[in-house]
């Protein structure tokens, strides 16, 4: 295959990233492996002693695992929606960071559902979901939607990678191990940049870009319906679908900014991921923050104004500083107001500040997911009588923390390993400036 000079020049710059693993990177990988092992110890205890080792009990049957699940599926939006929309609108400035977004999507969609498995008490009956599917159940919808979404995301990432794989395969610039080169050859599918092959890839990506947006919306709507279809305070809401979708795109954009900032610094990508890119994605963040803030306000205002007894129980928990008041305040100030201020003020609209505020916002949105789940479950319709306090209130145990850290470490490890296998900037897409 004839490779464009610009691609070779780019690949020369990115070659060290694929060829070598620095000592710092090894330490980082070892640290992540340690965290995963810590999660493994937690898993051992959970399997051996059952869910009694978690904070989940009869009343609070969902906890941090489900919060993590929603969180990871949420950040998977980074690739799906941002990549899909920007591709359809033919936005040129998307190219340097689009692979990061697509990697986030695939990895988060793989890691997220693992938390569901950790939450399921009878894993031995998991196959019943397939053998005895109940189509009226939002859980079945969720399984179908997420698996369809995962396949679509993998296809989208792979289609965008084929041309890069062909370049890695054919160039002498890259000095990588034999197994890696062999893998590049297999994954390139013999691509020779023929007009017909270009057309095949373009058609497929166009199709997927159109499909991945409604798919992503369906996935997060279905996820919200697991709550929304339930007659419980704080959950049974008609706006939960769009609210979840908005929160997901918002947190996905935040994670994308963090990833852009980290990879820009580590691999010196200042030439490709410029301040302009941060500004543009920052504007997206601002619009999403405003939309998410509007949904949040609507959600709580209607509940509060209605003053329905059961709804008020949950709101009292959220507004009371002896219960979830501090977390609620953090989730809304750090999750809505802070990002708006940082993006709105020109002097603060810098990559470093944007990455920092994104990190705080992503944490705030994780807290928000926790606040959606736990206070509601702690407010059952039938009063909890003669029950031990630990059965009423949920507290995260070390086992749950270990598995959460393990999941986060798995996400970061897969991301790190992926960046050692493919260039984080698509070399076939970007024209290097002379």
């Amino acid at each position: 295959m004839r490779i464009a000079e610009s691609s070779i020049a780019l690949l020369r710059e990115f070659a060290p990233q694929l060829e070598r693993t620095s000592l710092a990177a090894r330490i980082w990988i070892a640290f992540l492996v340690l965290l995963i092992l810590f999660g493994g110890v937690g898993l051992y205890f959970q399997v051996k002693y059952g869910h009694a080792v978690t904070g989940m009990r009869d009343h609070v049957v969902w906890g941090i695992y489900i919060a993590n699940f929603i969180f990871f599926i949420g950040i998977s939006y980074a690739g799906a929606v941002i990549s899909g929309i920007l591709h359809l609108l033919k936005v040129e400035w998307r190219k340097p960071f689009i692979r990061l977004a697509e990697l986030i999507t695939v990895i988060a969609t793989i890691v997220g559902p693992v938390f569901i498995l950790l939450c399921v008490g009878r894993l031995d009956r998991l196959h019943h979901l397939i053998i005895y599917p109940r189509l009226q159940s939002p859980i079945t919808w969720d399984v179908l939607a997420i698996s369809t979404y995962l396949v679509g995301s993998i296809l989208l990432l792979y289609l965008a990678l084929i041309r890069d794989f062909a370049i890695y395969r054919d160039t002498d610039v890259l000095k990588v191990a034999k197994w890696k080169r062999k893998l590049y050859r297999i994954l390139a599918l013999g691509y020779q940049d023929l007009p017909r092959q270009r057309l095949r890839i373009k058609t497929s990506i166009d199709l997927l870009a159109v499909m991945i947006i409604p798919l992503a919306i369906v996935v997060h709507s279905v996820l919200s319906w697991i709550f929304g279809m339930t007659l419980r305070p704080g959950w049974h809401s008609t706006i939960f679908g769009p609210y979840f979708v908005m929160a997901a795109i918002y947190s996905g954009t935040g994670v994308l900014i963090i990833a852009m900032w980290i990879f820009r610094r580590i691999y010196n990508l200042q030439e490709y991921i410029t301040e302009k890119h941060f500004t543009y994605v920052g504007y997206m963040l601002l619009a999403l923050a405003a939309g998410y803030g509007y949904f949040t306000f609507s959600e709580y205002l209607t509940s509060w104004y209605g003053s329905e007894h059961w709804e008020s129980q949950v709101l009292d928990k959220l507004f009371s500083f002896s219960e979830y008041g501090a977390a609620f305040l953090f989730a809304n100030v750090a999750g809505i107001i802070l990002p708006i201020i940082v993006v709105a003020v020109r002097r603060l609209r810098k990559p470093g500040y944007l990455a920092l505020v994104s990190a705080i916002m992503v944490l705030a949105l994780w807290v928000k997911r926790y606040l959606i789940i736990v206070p509601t479950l702690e407010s059952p319709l039938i009063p909890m009588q003669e029950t031990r306090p630990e059965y009423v209130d949920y507290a995260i145990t070390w086992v749950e923390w270990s598995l959460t850290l393990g999941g986060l470490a798995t996400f970061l490890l897969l991301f790190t390993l992926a960046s050692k296998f493919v260039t984080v900037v698509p070399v076939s897409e970007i024209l290097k400036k002379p």
Partner: protein
Amino acid sequence: MRSKQISHRRTVRWMRNVLLLIATMAAISPDTLHAQHRSRVSLECLQLGNQEVELTALVRARIGRSYVPMAGLKVDYFVARDSIEEVRIGSAETDERGFASIRYMMDGTSLTYAFRASFAGNDTISDDDATTSVVPAVLTIEQAEDDSLNHQFNVLIQGWTADGYVPVEDVPVEVFVRRMLSDLKVFTGTTDADGRLLAQVPGDLPGDANETLDIVARVTEHDTYGSLSASILKTPRTQPIHHDRPERALWTDAAPLWMLITFFVLMGTVWGHYLYILLQLVGIKSDTRKLQQQSVNE
């Protein structure tokens, strides 16, 4: 070359350290992480009538923040009658719910029986015991004349005294109907000066699978008499309702048709496109093969 060797050695050392870490973590057994668990034994004495009692001990151990029922533990039972010294009356092993039961026949010579259940402890669980004392008593339930709305039952409680069995006043009694998952409480009341109580059970209650109503009168953990229980079978006025439920499967009439159509159309559209894209990927490979074939021919 040398730098490659150093890098190789470094990698080997790094992998060795990771393996050592895994081995160390695998060696941690739950016993080394947990000290001896604190146990908690509770004891309930249920008088079945005819001087027979059922002693049920529940053994739990503190694991984490909760007390968890423990199976397979031996519980010894003792009795002390009036001022006579305590004697062992038997032992039982806890089941998977942590319960261990024995039955004991009171001889009718004593006014009070003090029972003790004792778990001696082992290497991982500490020892504990629980006591309860009862005065022998009898609870009886008999059919009374039904009214137009209710089934009615006479409940009588008699306690053991030096003069024999005498009616006991002011004892709270609960009446239940046995249902599949748990007993349904249908009546509560207190015995009168004659130790009697007229219990009313709604007449429209359907029977069980055997088309009977199993009515249970119960006194729960009374300070003097412990727990008492007696039951009676009654033919219900209402027969159980049999629902002819169709099999819950996607290929039966019960399946939500509109949902199935929507589902298959949507999923078919999406997965159909995936299939098309996969065919395009296969096409990429075949395009190259054709090109190679062409150049060979030329």
